[in-house]
């Protein structure tokens, strides 16, 4: 089977800091790939490099067997890669609808849209409401409210709903449950399964081992700027995974007890 999204030999340096050191990455169709690693291991940089938010200094990114160069997140999005960033990428003073459609607004049909470029608020609202309902975000009282009045979990829900609504080839989630309560985390995990059942592969970056082991098909262990190994959650324990990513254990080795 060929990977949907593949990266070879990615290198990214920030001044004297090497965030990515000849890193490889593969995502196969229909799978959930978890990416785990210590703080500062370069997980976020890896994600940014494949989602267009940073341009790698060296290396190649391949999408569906073709090499791609993403100069911006918009370019990646146009190729069907949606990302939910840890810092959520929302404009606090704008409404939920404005944020969901940021950069891909719908215009009214006919002359109002073409000539006066008027936004189709009604249609955007309908679509956003539908997507939020799918996610079970019932605690949002008013879809026109501005994002800064939402709680952290609600913002996360909106961001995930945005990615799920528009992602067609790959969805990347950077720490999607980090700021969430028990119930919201469950919703997000259900959504991840739901997206997977629609055949869209997901990259999940998380520090939450129970969540990772629950949903992931494969686990990419990131250490010191590169892929240390890929493990199968069925064959390894959570403590193995933690040992690998912290350097307490080498790949291939199995921990006693």
């Amino acid at each position, binding site marked *: 089977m060929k990977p949907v999204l593949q990266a070879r030999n990615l290198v990214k340096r920030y001044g004297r800091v090497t965030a990515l050191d000849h890193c490889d990455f593969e995502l196969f169709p229909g799978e959930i790939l978890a990416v785990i690693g210590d703080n500062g291991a370069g997980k976020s940089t890896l994600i940014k490099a494949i989602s267009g938010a940073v341009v790698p200094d060296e290396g190649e990114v391949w999408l569906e067997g073709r090499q791609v160069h993403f100069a911006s997140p918009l370019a990646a999005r146009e190729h069907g890669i949606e990302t939910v960033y840890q810092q959520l990428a929302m*404009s606090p003073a704008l409404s939920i609808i404005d944020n969901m459609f940021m950069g891909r607004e719908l215009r009214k049909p006919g002359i109002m849209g073409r000539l006066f470029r008027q936004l189709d608020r009604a249609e955007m609202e309908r679509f956003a409401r539908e997507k939020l309902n799918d996610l079970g975000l019932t*605690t949002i009282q008013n879809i026109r409210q501005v994002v800064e009045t939402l709680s952290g979990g609600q913002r996360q829900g909106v961001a995930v709903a945005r990615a799920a609504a528009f992602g067609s080839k790959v969805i990347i989630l950077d720490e999607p449950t980090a700021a969430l309560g028990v119930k919201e985390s469950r919703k997000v995990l259900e959504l991840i399964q739901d997206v997977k059942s629609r055949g869209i592969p997901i990259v999940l970056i998380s520090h939450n081992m*129970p969540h990772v082991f629950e949903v992931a098909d494969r686990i990419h262990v990131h250490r010191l700027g590169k892929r240390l190994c890929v493990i199968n959650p069925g064959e390894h324990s959570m403590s193995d995974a933690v040992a690998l990513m912290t350097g307490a254990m080498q790949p291939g080795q199995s921990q006693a007890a």
Partner: protein
Amino acid sequence: MAASAVKGQEYETSLSQASTSIADFEDHRTGLVYRAQNLLHQTPSLVPLIVLVVSVLVFGALLGAKFFSPFALTLILQQVQIVGILAAAQSLVILTAGIDLSVGAIMVLSSVVMGQFAFRYGLPPALAIACGLGVGTFCGFVNGFLVAKVKLPPFIVTLGMWQIVLATNFLYSANETIRAQEIEAGAPLLHFFGTKFTIGGAVFTVGVVFMVVLVFVLAYALRHTAWGRHVYAVGDDKEAAELSGVRTDRVLISVYMLSGLICAFAGWALIGRIGSVSPTSGQLGNIESITAVVIGGISLFGGRGSIIGSLFGALIVGVFTLGLRLLGADAQWTYLLIGMLIIAAVAVDQWIRKVSV
């Protein structure tokens, strides 16, 4: 271990009985102050509107028919038209969390180019005006390019451009004024914005109409088009906007170019207002436009406020200026009161923001 991972979420079993009703809170903070704060948070231009209405009423009560006449009230419009147009340009830039100190200088240079191209080179007035508009837009482009691509702070970029454009203006014009009679005879189109028409006792000029139409067109664009939403998003959080897929560079450059173009229109209106083309006019345009924007309730931190507010802001300054002059007060009283208004406006802005956090 792997098996326990799958059933490791036993504590979540009670979730199946979790409440599914939509959150509904009774808001106990129903005091008048709280409701006012909330209302103002939703419609930020309400504060300057209230100040405007109150100040008109107060001066009207003090001065009677001398102030409360169609003539006097429309005189205010004529007096603020230049600042009002510049404030529209300034609002766009400030909404992106920038500032444009070069608006006045771009206005003067554009008007000088319009005049000199028509008289020094004998170009047809329409073409000379087009050149002036082009020069203004180009100055805006340079600002936008330096801010968006070279990533310099807008304050520094436009501080530099202010000096550069002003110096260019004096060097190019050789400090020479083109008199009103010459313009009237040679290129009356330059006076177009000064064309007067009366409705009852009210006197309007094309420049006044242009100012009002411009503000409403921009208000529409900011609220109802994707570009407008992007302007707010860039001012709110540039990095988040970038990650959401907004081409922030393009948005910034388009805003500064549009600001330059509007300043050039202000230059055209300036010729109509003062009659002549003078390289020494309009020097305080930058400060006056920032004053109008701030009193109009647009946040200097970007992303918040309404452009209609800056029109009200400009009108407030106009009402105070004319009202105090008719009262026979020293002009310094105007500056003193405007200064207090600026500080009060920012204090109100901070207070309104508290509603959300």
